[in-house]
């Protein structure tokens, strides 16, 4: 069972340009990460709050709706967040060729 988790994360990490992958629980505490601790903790804390905000925004507008994916594009890279009820999957990719 553990191998499956690792394998999935490895597969994501092996994509081109992926700088880091992390799995964060519902409270924003990182569970698995490929980056160093301080960066992970910072990303986890900030993105967790942002995801909550985005989710509440979507649901405020339409209660039947829900947030499925969040992508933040910046000059240097792109942060992708896949939210769930209990976990958050965060992937940071550098899309520029």
């Amino acid at each position, binding site marked *: 069972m553990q191998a499956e988790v690792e394998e999935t994360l490895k597969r994501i990490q092996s994509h081109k340009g992926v700088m880091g992958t992390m799995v964060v629980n519902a409270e924003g505490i990182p569970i698995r990460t490929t980056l160093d*601790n301080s960066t992970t903790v910072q990303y986890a804390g900030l993105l967790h709050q942002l995801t909550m905000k985005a989710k509440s925004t979507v649901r405020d507008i339409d209660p039947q709706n829900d947030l499925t994916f969040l992508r933040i594009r910046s000059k240097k890279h792109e942060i*992708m967040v896949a939210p769930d009820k209990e976990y958050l999957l965060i992937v940071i*990719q550098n899309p520029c060729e």
Partner: protein
Amino acid sequence: MAPKSQKQKSAGGHKNTKRSKTKQILPDREEVEPVTMESMGHPEIYPLVLTTQTQEIFNCRIDEDVTDEKPYKLIKKEDILADFKNRAAVSDFYPVKKVIQEYPGDDLLVVYDKDFRYGLNFYLIGTEEGKENYLNRPEVPEEQEEYKEHTSEDLYIYKPPISKPWVSLGSEKEIDEESVKESAKQITYMISRKRSEFGAPVKFRDQNASSVKDAYIECTAYPDKNFIVKQLEKDVGMQVVPKVKDTSTQTRWTYPKNASTQYYPREFSEEEKEIFGQSKPLIDFLNNASISVEIALQQNEIMNTFIDDWKCLAEEEGTFGDKTDTHLKEYQSFTDLHNLTENMVTSISWHPTIYGLIAVSVAIRLSLEDRVHFSGKLLLQPSLILFWSFSDPIHPQLMLESPDDIFCFKFCPSDPNIIAGGCINGQIVLWDITAHADRIENIKTGGSRSKKATLKPMFLLEPDSNKEATYIRHCAVSSIENGHKKVITDIHWLSDTFEINRMGSVFENRSGICCQLVTCSADCTICFWDIRSQKALTPPPIEKKKEESIEIPFDVPSTFLHLDLSWKPLIKIRLSKGETSLDHCPTKISLSEDHLLYKAQDKILAQSKVVKAGEMNPYHDLEGALANNLKPIEDFCTKFFVGTEEGGVIYTDWKMERDPETGRLMAKKPVNLYAVHDGAVHTVQRSPFYKDIILTIGGWNLAIWKEGITTGPLLQSCCAPKRYTAGHWSLTRPGVFYIGREDGYIDIWDLLEKTHEPAQSQNICITMITYIKPWTFTAKQQFIAIADYYGTLHILEIPWTLSHPSTNEASSMSYYFEREVKHLEYVEQRKKIREQEKKEMELELEKKKTKTYQKSKEQMEAELKADYDNYLELEKNTLINLGLIKMPETMSFMDLM
């Protein structure tokens, strides 16, 4: 009382007796009306109370005269009246006195009311009629009652009402009283006037009121006695009340606001993470989420949707000058005309903060033999570092004096007034030019000088007092015995963010200034020095001190007095080649922190300003600056690159370790050694853009290395026709570097353009180039200082194309390096594969040789048979084709074909 209804409504059956009597009229008792039973429908019945005395008087005693059979008594009117006279008010008949007096008859009927039907024991019947009725029908009360009941069921016989004479009951009296009558007679007046006087116009006139008597009535004021009395005492009530006042005000609410918060994040321990890894929800989530994540990742990989192609198409705008101009333009050149000896420039350094100031170290251009030969003469000539300014090409602004020729020197990054230089004799020399700082700062405003007499020929201008170049003596030199023994080839200041101790461990630098130096010398050692006073020094014997104490001239600052002549290195690393006595001779070193010094201009400016504004220059307080409680920095890379005189590049560590056998501190063995160059390596430099890319130039080729890649250089150029003698990275373009050749040419390499040869070549001077140093002043102005063997310093301006990076140049360069790294890896792998293949090939050859003898007889026979069968087939087919054999019918046409 007895029910009224039946008795009242009965047409007949009135039981009336009456008794009349004359009444005595008493005037004031007339108003008392006798109580009648009018309410009961018997107005003639007046109940009475007859006391026993009255009963005796009138012989109507109960149960004697008045019995049940004969309950009535006729009493004479005169008797009652007599009784009135006798007893007046006491008489029992008094209440009905009036009735009795008006009674017309003589006899009044008094009835004994045994049952108290009318309230009292007797009653009087006040009318004759009633009397008659009673008397006539006394004995049939019950019968009449019964009769009444019976008659009510029978047919009602209508009897028209018989008009009876009006009986006065006293109402006319009331009417009389209520009616209004004229009490007095009415008086009649008649008033007349003459008719003509009616309606005549009236004339009003004024008249004094006082003149006519009684014309007015006044109400004169008079003192009223009631108001004379003065009130001297007044009763007033007092109450003490607490004074309550309501006010409100608005204040500025200073609420506590967090200035800073320190926190640490929540984390899971390893076991908890393991547990999570096992949990099923996580797996499900990852399986679901990874789908969408991978889609998104692939989208990005396919295409970058946010690229603005239009923008990417355009290059940077705002070009200065011609874009196609790629030549370095001569700006200025400096030569020292004072010194008559032939000098060469050994090192150049731009002043970190002041515009247009460049320092040059010169040395005598003699070989070792000649030096020894002319050593006496050389002693007299001062060895100098010259400070040139753009505004004055003839006279150096400052001249720093040193005991011997300087081969390398550097400005201190945290204080440009401190200069450290390495001498040819192995000493480190320190200067402090704080006192002259303002002189060199205001060189720009040297216009006033030029306005003075300029018509004098050049040689007469020398003794001009304004431009008297001062010789500045050095502040301190290192100890001769303990320092280097041979020429110091390279000197660097360590960054002010860290410092090292005797073991080579790295600590935090709390002082904020650069206080440590590293030097390498031809005596195969690398030394680390600290400019602060070292407390652990054994106090030298007093006699020695006396000998060495030299009178210090008054104009030398005492910044480094504690170091003068007693300066010992902190760490001494010997680059040994192992057991052999020959060691590596380092020529240049490159530390990982050096690259910061190229771009630290702003920082230095800020720092130097702070230093000036502050009270104390930290460099003046070095004596007590060694702190004991320093925080060690972890993960610090203590490795650095060294270029040697033999052409090797060494990657080694400065951390010392204790030799287990001898107990002394030993330097670690070098991590790597590469022999790539054919001559002495004179340039080992980190790229200003990439911390881990190093350029080494030596001999006839150059190499680019990446720190961490141990297989070899990323790029190694082929041998050039001329020897390379100087080199430097470009400060603004990541892929450009300048190389100076021994024939006075500059090769400009652009790695993005060509990697096998220089992109450009330009002639600067006629002799060997000894040093190259570019410097950026502004975005538009970039200079490169090139020094040659004959002692001339050329300043050239770098054109736009060479100073401005194209867009994506940095990323292109990093990709280039990555590709090269991958290429190296690939080469390594291929090597392995080749090895493998080689081995396999050899094995196969071996196998083949042995195989030929191993074929068995059966195999050979089988082979022969197979061959024979094939031949038979072939023969058959050929004959069929020729038509010589009849083909079997079963064969189809296609088979034949």
